[in-house]
């Protein structure tokens, strides 16, 4: 709950991208949905994949495990990147945190960001790192 409270009041570009375009009622609803989904327990991979392809749900984002940036799309193809196997529906605040983690310098990856470290890695390694972070972020069990 502390985590939800901390995250729900964040004001930053990454958060504004989610909340910024909404009107006041929309923002309150989005915030309520984000708080609710932030309390989700960790789920299995199947449970996280199951909603992919259905209508979007408030409080959740569809997350690509192997990143959907242009280099990956060129290397692995749109169909694999956008496949059900490569996507999970996760709480929006966890999605914001995980996306930030991919973009920030990290001692473990030779001081590169995980995204830069993974740039020349094969799909299996990118999938392994992506699932590992979902697990450690308590999204995946």
């Amino acid at each position: 709950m502390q985590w939800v409270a901390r995250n729900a009041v964040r004001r930053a570009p990454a958060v504004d991208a989610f909340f910024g375009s909404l009107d006041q009622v929309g923002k309150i609803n989005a915030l309520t949905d984000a708080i609710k989904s932030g309390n989700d327990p960790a789920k299995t991979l199947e449970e996280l994949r199951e909603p992919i392809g259905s209508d979007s749900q408030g409080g959740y984002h569809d997350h690509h495990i192997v990143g959907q940036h242009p280099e990956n799309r060129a290397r692995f193809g749109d169909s694999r990147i956008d496949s059900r196997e490569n996507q999970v529906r996760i709480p929006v605040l966890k999605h914001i945190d995980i996306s930030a983690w991919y973009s920030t310098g990290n001692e473990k990856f030779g001081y590169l960001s995980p995204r830069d470290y993974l740039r020349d890695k094969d799909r299996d390694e990118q999938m392994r790192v992506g699932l590992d972070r979902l697990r450690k972020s308590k999204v995946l069990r």
Partner: protein
Amino acid sequence: MMAQAQNHAASVQELVERFLSVSLAQYDALYVVDTRKYNRLFTRMVDIRNELKRREADQRRALLPLLDHPNIQVRLKAAITLLAVAPDLARKALERVRDSGILPQSADAEDMLEAVDNGSYVPS
């Protein structure tokens, strides 16, 4: 370059204070998901670590008191820095951060402990 020059001229105590200040600023940057700011601070921290390491007898040990700092980001970054010079204490601090469950630091601590154990990160 200017920051590096300032670090060269600083005392060990000043470097420890800078390390603390940068860690706290990192915490704030993570709190608001400001990745650009975090990355600038990350580079500054690497410079401070390198300067402490370069000093006679490797002065990274001067960060040991930060393992008990109330801020979790300070404890995490001090522990990672100290892995090479005080591995047992650093490891215990990382285990405490991991076990706190406070994200994202708990995930980062778990990551680092695994990397040390499997040899993919070798403290130096």
